[in-house]
């Protein structure tokens, strides 16, 4: 048997999930009460999964890093959530959503998973409306839709520019209901420190109580990791400050394979970087590309004057503006997928047409939309985003075009999972951004929310039962087993080691430098040379961390220690990302290797050699991991060069 058994059900694509559900094992209500499930993270995937498990009757223990489950970073998603409802009657269908997602992911996602995602998308919208999520509506009282990048239909449901917030609060409500009922026990301000594996199965976790600093042990029959993506390996990103890759990394070190780690998404519309002390970047929703037009000056000299502040954007007449996305991609225009839009912005800036004092920005202009729709209509659609922009940049985007630049936003890669969302460690499941399965090499806008809720509400409640049906005779584990002792001891030693360095540089300093290496050498475009350099530089930086970092040794709450533990993991993860990017001698989606491009600068895939999922098996921090390959079979779509022209 292949090491990576994807367990894709047999039969036609459209019938696989139905067939799976009809044939899977179930757990009867009396047995459900005897089974414990641990969920790490309370974002869309974690909260929806935990609530659904609780409703089914399992005992659920949920952990989150923040003070409340409502603060998970799903809350910051702005633009919307996709579904194949076809309410606008514009030609959408499950099949089309599937096609768009596979194509958008540049043919590096697993067909069966993507089809299931498209299939359950409609149920998600029904569920959220029933929970009281106040989606945007038109005057008929029915739900409104808008379009997003990579699609020619309007299939995105939204709640102003706060869709993630509203969906998360819906899931948080469902979770709160189960907490009140007692089926779910909530543990806030806890961070997962290690996975406990007993006889080859995930059976518990070690967490750190962030308030007391104590380590705690919890056992269960299964563990779900839903702790989000690892974009903060780049330091600057649109992720929240506490977003991290450590839960993923501990699982990787305990035997779960890490898949396609180099597939990271650089979002095209973020507020540009302004200074060294900057802690994070702010996204401007992709929905802005519905009405905003992206441009730079046609004349590089004018761009220079703009950079030097000698002229203003509004001084550039219409015929001197280069609407480069509309020029290069006439059929999708400003709504090309994220990877394409990001690279095009970088290309223009590299060529000397960038604006802002840094030269690292392009314009996103609403002048035409304001003329066409009126200021009020624009304000109604995007008001809160415009306000947010003005707050940060101190410029009024109704008058002066916005400046945007790409920033790290999402990680398509993650823990390898089979069709059941189970990792290579039995009983360890991964949901939402943590897993790799649905977005291939590039995620389409408004698909992250869809996937998180799909995994939590409609996939895991089924597949988890199929696993737990075989566990009904297992008693809850004793948390004093040697496996728990050893795991806790290892964490304790790691903490002691960090605290004892007492060096001369702060964690953020090293994190910032890691971010700079990642962004410059493993970022929007990569070369064999840049990646090789990055691997060496990361190794050196890791050494520096373990000899020079200074973390205050205080009892109880120690936020610097939290950061240091996360950065220690990022320093290992960054190397794996670079290795994966170096291995993949092709360009696809968000992974762009300069050596592999078409004559007109588009990503050049190599389907003959690289149509596989790269899954890495840990072999020790200083050893190369083993690469396992899951061949991707495309039986329902034809592999084509993506064309958005």
């Amino acid at each position, binding site marked *: 048997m292949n090491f990576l058994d994807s367990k894709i059900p047999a039969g036609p694509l459209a019938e696989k999930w139905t067939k799976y559900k009809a044939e899977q094992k179930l757990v009867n209500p009396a047995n459900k009460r005897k089974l414990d499930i641990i969920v790490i993270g309370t974002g869309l995937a974690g909260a929806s999964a935990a*609530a659904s498990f609780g409703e089914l009757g399992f005992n659920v223990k949920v952990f989150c890093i923040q003070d409340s489950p409502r603060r998970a*970073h799903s809350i910051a998603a702005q633009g919307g959530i996709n579904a194949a409802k076809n309410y606008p009657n514009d030609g959408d269908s499950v099949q089309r959503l599937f096609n768009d997602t596979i194509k958008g992911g540049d043919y590096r996602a697993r067909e069966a998973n993507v089809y299931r995602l498209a299939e359950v998308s409609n149920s998600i919208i029904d569920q959220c*409306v029933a929970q009281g999520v106040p989606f945007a509506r038109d005057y008929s009282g029915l739900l409104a839709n808008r379009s997003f990048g990579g699609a020619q239909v309007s299939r995105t449901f939204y709640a102003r520019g706060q869709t993630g917030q509203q969906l998360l609060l819906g899931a948080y409500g469902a979770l709160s209901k189960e907490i009140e009922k007692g089926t779910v026990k909530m543990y806030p301000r806890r961070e997962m420190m290690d996975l406990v594996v007993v006889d080859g199965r995930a059976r518990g976790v070690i967490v750190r109580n962030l308030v007391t600093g104590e380590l705690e042990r919890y056992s269960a029959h299964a563990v779900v990791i839903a702790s989000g993506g690892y974009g903060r390996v780049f330091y600057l990103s649109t992720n929240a400050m506490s977003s991290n890759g450590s839960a993923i990394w501990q699982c990787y070190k305990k035997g779960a394979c890490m898949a396609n780690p180099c597939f990271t998404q650089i979002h095209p519309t973020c507020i540009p970087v302004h200074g060294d002390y*900057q802690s994070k970047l*702010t996204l401007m929703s992709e929905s802005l590309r519905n009405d905003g037009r992206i441009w730079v000056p046609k004349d590089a000299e004018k761009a220079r004057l703009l950079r030097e502040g000698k002229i203003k954007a509004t001084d550039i007449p219409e015929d001197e503006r280069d609407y480069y996305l509309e020029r290069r991609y006439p059929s999708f225009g400003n709504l090309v997928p994220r990877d394409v839009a990001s690279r095009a912005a970088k290309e223009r800036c590299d060529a000397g047409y960038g604006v802002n004092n840094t030269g690292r920005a392009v314009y996103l202009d609403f002048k035409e939309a304001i003329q066409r729709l009126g200021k009020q209509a624009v304000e109604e659609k995007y008001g809160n985003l415009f306000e947010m922009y003005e707050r940060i940049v*101190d410029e009024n985007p109704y008058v002066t075009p916005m400046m945007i630049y790409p920033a790290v936003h999402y990680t398509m890669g993650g823990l390898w999972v089979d069709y059941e969302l189970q990792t290579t460690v039995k009983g360890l499941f991964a949901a939402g951004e943590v897993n790799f399965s649905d977005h291939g090499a590039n995620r389409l806008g408004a698909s992250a929310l869809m996937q998180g809720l799909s995994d939590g509400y*409609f996939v895991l409640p089924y597949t988890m039962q199929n696993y737990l049906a075989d566990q009904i005779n297992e008693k809850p584990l004793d948390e004093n087993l040697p496996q728990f002792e050893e795991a806790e001891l290892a964490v304790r030693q790691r903490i002691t080691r960090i605290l004892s360095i007492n060096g001369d540089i702060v964690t953020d300093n090293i994190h910032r430098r890691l971010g700079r290496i990642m962004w410059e050498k493993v970022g929007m475009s990569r070369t064999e040379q840049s990646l090789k350099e990055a691997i060496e530089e990361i190794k050196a930086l890791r050494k520096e961390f373990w000899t020079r970092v200074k973390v205050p040794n205080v009892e109880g709450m120690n936020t610097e220690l939290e950061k240091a533990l996360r950065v220690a993991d990022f320093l290992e993860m960054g190397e794996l990302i670079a290795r994966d990017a170096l291995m993949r001698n092709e360009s696809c989606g968000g992974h762009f290797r300069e050596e592999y491009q078409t004559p007109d600068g588009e990503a050049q895939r190599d389907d003959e050699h690289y149509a596989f999922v790269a899954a890495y098996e840990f072999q020790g921090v200083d050893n190369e991991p083993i690469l396992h390959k899951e061949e991707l079979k495309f039986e329902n779509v034809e592999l084509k060069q993506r064309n958005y022209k």
Partner: protein
Amino acid sequence: MNIKLKIWRQRNATSKGKFVEYQLNDVPAEASFLEMLDILNEQLVLKGEDPVTFDHDCREGICGACGLYINGHPHGRFKNTTTCQLHMRKFKDGDTITVEPWRSEAFPIIKDLMVDRSALDKLIQAGGYISVHTGGVPDANAIPINKHNADLAMDAASCIGCGACVAACKNGSAMLFVGAKVSQFALLPQGQVESADRVQKMVARMDALGFGSCSNTYACQAECPKGISVTNIARMNRQFLAAKIAEPIKK
């Protein structure tokens, strides 16, 4: 710019706290308030001192984690602004800035500027949801909802749960927080089924958790970073009264 900070420092929930003064120089005007604290903390760590602990996460004004009392106002004195969205350009060179944690009986201090707001979660657990379970719900377009009401529900649902309303209130009341959640569902047909139960349970929980009552100063509305309106409190009061008369729940 150069500023002087007066920051509340408190080792843990049981110890006694005090103001400590810090001089911070060369703060970039574009930095956010929290980035300014990052700069301070970096200096403290290098000096071998314990950095200032505060809650923060998304740093884009939506997660509700941050919340500092700045110069006597929750999230500072600027309208519709969370602490993380406040930029140093709003201050002047040479300013003294006083930074305190949320002060409310329902929010005990954990450390320095970080407080325990789990009482807000407990309020939601009392009934701040529609009790549907996953699956088996009607089609999303089965029930049309008047756009005006849907928009008002969205206004109410915009609450980020930061607790500024409680911190701003001289009574430490959570009426705006609860009113917003009750209103969101009161305005939607899906919320009607449980509305009488919901409002009574949430109000009862509010009292049990030690939140004060409302004396209509509207400080909550004035300080809410999301501009949640006190009309939501009025709507909750109407709901509560109607429910008490028509469908009182058993104690």
